[in-house]
């Protein structure tokens, strides 16, 4: 958060009334940021925090890839390696991916997209950020008191027996989960009660729909995780042994409860990304979505059906064949909703007026990677194949295609797309395109070989591996370096643009969506006068009456 300037360059000497000053300008003290209830500032606080956690998680990822350069120990011990992949997972899942788009962009954009002044409960919103920080600090603290070596899934009985800082890290995750619930609750109530005149349910930008669906999952799934993590905490710390087989416990039940949260959590991560795709595609194609209702309702469909499929993580866990079959067929349903979205996005492009800018380039990467990653996911629900793939690098590759190829790509698309709105400045377009290409290439080279590794049978979470896998591992590691270069160049030009980027103006992309109908950066209460919401967020058949506020 320290990377963002607290001041915004105003035209020198221009007198500004408080109502017209941007949210960055109204007050610039550190105190005004730490005690702010402005959803935009909270969004910026989240964005800064999340970029930091992402960098940390990325550092662990690079270390893991480096370790796999050779089949034998390369740079670290097995103990260190086990802590590294656990922390990579915990940080990336709970401290980056889950809050990434909702908490940063959702906080910033959702009220503006509804024409509201703020979220329904602004102080709760700030509290949620502080709760997140407390949880994140606890998780990071656990690294200093022995780390945690259970894998991000915390399966008992191993997690109950592990001598590492399991209780601390799990409490951290529990608290982060509480923050997620508060944010989700806030967004649901905001969407219900804060829509401005003229913004009906079917006039909301599609990003709102996806955040709304995400919030539903957050609110309903997270408590189950909280409960089950608490049981593991007391198991590890006090020896209550609820999942301990020697006391009659059943570790498979833990897996049920854990995946009841963690499978929907996949949609917590990817649904907001889908919302970004809907926005970016419409804006750069200057076209209405091929079917607004299909995209909107499929978000809700994913939120619901996502809860019915958790068992496909457990096909070889000792679940009954009947239950496994039921979960297999239910898993097929959820993929259909995603497929509907993909076809709608693609067909939105048809007969549009397409300008290939950096965000759209990222969206194209998203389309390819998400379809590939998604369908390999469906493939694992074809159950006999999962018996071979389960817990191998195939699964690792699959969910990285979704998490990185899907969510991170969409996150970067959103970052480029909304950067002018949040800061009032433009980034260098050519560097953006170049970095996007690097990120895509690096990602593909990193993770595609992992599909092959998994097919060949390489199990995940292996510190050492048989020598015949080395070639593919080396390719993967080299790919991770390309990916890192792409991300770092992105970071550099964004930092440069904060200071020296050209002024963006209120609506540099010519979007019709509601958040662009005010100044960039927006004033404290978002809109200085009631914007013309009669023209819908995707109506490109007529020019906007007045572009500037």
């Amino acid at each position, binding site marked *: 958060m320290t990377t963002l300037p607290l001041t915004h360059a105003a035209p020198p000497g221009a007198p500004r009334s408080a109502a017209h000053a941007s949210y960055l300008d109204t007050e610039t003290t550190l105190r005004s940021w730490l005690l702010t209830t402005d959803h935009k500032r909270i969004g910026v606080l989240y964005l800064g925090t999340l970029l930091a956690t992402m960098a940390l998680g990325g550092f662990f990822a690079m270390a893991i890839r480096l370790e796999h350069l050779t089949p034998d120990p390369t740079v670290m011990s097995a103990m260190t390696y086990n802590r590294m992949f656990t922390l990579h997972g915990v940080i990336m899942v709970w401290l980056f991916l889950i809050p990434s788009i909702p908490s940063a962009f959702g906080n910033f954009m959702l009220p503006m997209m509804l024409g509201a002044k703020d979220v329904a409960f602004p102080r709760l919103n700030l509290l949620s950020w502080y709760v997140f920080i407390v949880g994140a600090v606890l998780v990071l603290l656990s690294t200093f008191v022995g780390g945690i070596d259970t894998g991000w899934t915390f399966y008992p009985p191993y997690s109950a027996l592990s001598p590492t800082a399991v209780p601390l890290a799990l409490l951290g995750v529990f608290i982060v989960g509480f923050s997620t619930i508060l944010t989700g609750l806030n967004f649901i109530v905001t969407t219900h009660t804060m829509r401005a005149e003229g913004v009906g349910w079917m006039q909301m930008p599609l990003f709102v729909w996806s955040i709304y669906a995400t919030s539903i999952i957050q609110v309903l799934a997270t408590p189950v995780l909280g409960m089950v993590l608490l049981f593991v905490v007391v198991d590890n710390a006090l020896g209550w042994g609820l999942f301990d087989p020697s006391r009659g416990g059943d570790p498979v039940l833990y897996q049920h409860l854990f995946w009841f949260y963690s499978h929907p959590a996949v949609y917590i991560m990817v649904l907001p990304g889908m919302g970004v795709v809907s926005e970016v595609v419409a804006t750069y194609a200057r076209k209405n979505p091929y079917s607004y209702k299909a995209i909107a309702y499929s978000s809700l469909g994913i939120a619901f059906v996502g809860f019915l499929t958790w068992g496909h993580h457990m096909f070889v866990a000792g679940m009954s064949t009947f239950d496994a079959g039921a979960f297999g067929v239910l898993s097929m349903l959820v993929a259909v909703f995603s497929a509907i979205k993909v076809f709608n996005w693609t067909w939105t492009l048809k007969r549009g*007026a397409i300008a290939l800018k950096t965000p759209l380039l990222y969206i194209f990467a998203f389309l390819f990677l998400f379809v590939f990653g998604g369908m390999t996911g469906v493939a694992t629900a*074809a159950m*006999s194949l999962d018996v071979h793939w389960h817990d191998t690098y195939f699964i690792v590759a699959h969910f990285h295609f979704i998490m990185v190829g899907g969510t991170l790509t969409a996150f970067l698309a959103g970052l480029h797309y909304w950067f002018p709105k949040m800061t009032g400045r433009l980034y260098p377009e050519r560097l953006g395109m170049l970095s996007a290409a690097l990120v895509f290439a690096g990602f593909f080279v990193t993770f595609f070989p992992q599909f092959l590794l998994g097919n060949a049978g390489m199990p995940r979470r292996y510190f050492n591996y048989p020598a015949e896998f080395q070639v593919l591992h080396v390719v993967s590691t080299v790919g991770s370096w390309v990916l890192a270069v792409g991300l770092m160049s992105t970071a550099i030009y964004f930092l440069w643009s904060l200071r020296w980027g050209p002024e963006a103006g209120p609506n540099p992309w010519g979007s019709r969506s509601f958040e662009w109908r005010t100044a960039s950066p927006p004033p404290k209460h978002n809109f200085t006068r009631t914007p013309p919401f009669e023209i819908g967020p995707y109506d490109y058949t007529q020019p906007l009456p007045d572009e500037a506020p």
Partner: protein
Amino acid sequence: METLRMILALPRGGSTIADSIDLLHGFVIGVTMLMSTYVFATAAWFTIRYHRKRDDQLTERVTATRRGEAFIIAGILGTFLLWWVIGFRQYVDVRDPPSDADIVYVDAKQWMWKFAYADGRVSNDVLTVPLGRPIKLVMISRDVIHSFYVPGFRVKQDVLPGRYTTLWFEAKEAGTYPIWCAEYCGVSHSAMRGEVRVLEADEYARWKRAGDAKLAGAPPCRLPGACGEGNLVAEGRAVAERRQCVACHTLDGQKHIGPTWARLYGSEVTLEDGRRVVADDAYLTRSMMEPNADVVAGYRQMMPSYRGALSAGEVAALVELIRSLRDAPAPPSGIALPRLDVTAVKEGGAPP
């Protein structure tokens, strides 16, 4: 088939189920490649075809037709359901062992695999099986969750503490296949490897006679009393005496503190709550681990749990002993502990 495996980087298919699974694999991945390329290419084509000409260009409103949407949904759902139908049938095949499979007991612990064969042999990390025979593994873990994975057979099953899980395969090519632990189990997880050694019938017979001495790398013998010449039934008698089973259970059909073991195996037993169960391997092992779950009518709840006290090898030996007694003669009144029929012992042992 081999070309398909090469493209997909799959290991050789050493089991009877591998070919059909790999075919589905090729089908599924082919469709996936096709669809993602198609979506990407379509998007790219639209980008070129409908390139923006003016910054404030307007577009007309285009919306989906209901029929088009329904068609796409039906197509996708149909494809996915087809995958599931094929996959589920294969899954059932993978999970459901043939009834004539040979049983090998597997004991997993951090970080090794132990195998106990029906003839009393045990081995560590090397599982020796004959070619062309279905093998059923009955697996349990001593500590945390492990997962028994043989990529060459396309089989995998988590090995749980406190509960038996099974896995079966039938090798169709002789040779060695690596075993890997696929569920993270601690610091040496990646060192928990073993191998399946598939031997031709004559080779296997030689191994059964002479043990590993005639083959490479003799695994050490760990379980007390389980090595050497004796078969599993004899070992079962030893265990029954060592663990004081015979204090309550008789081997000759006489009623004592607990039910007798004679003619117990495979018979139908009435429990105290009125349920009727068949005394199979499942029931017997459960009765050792959770004696009070299914108490036989007419007996009291008093047997302690042997969970953790009996090793997988010992459980195997006891079950084999009880199985050998299924055809024991009716109790000759008054005479205790009759000598067992030799033929019954042989039938109780491993099939040839």
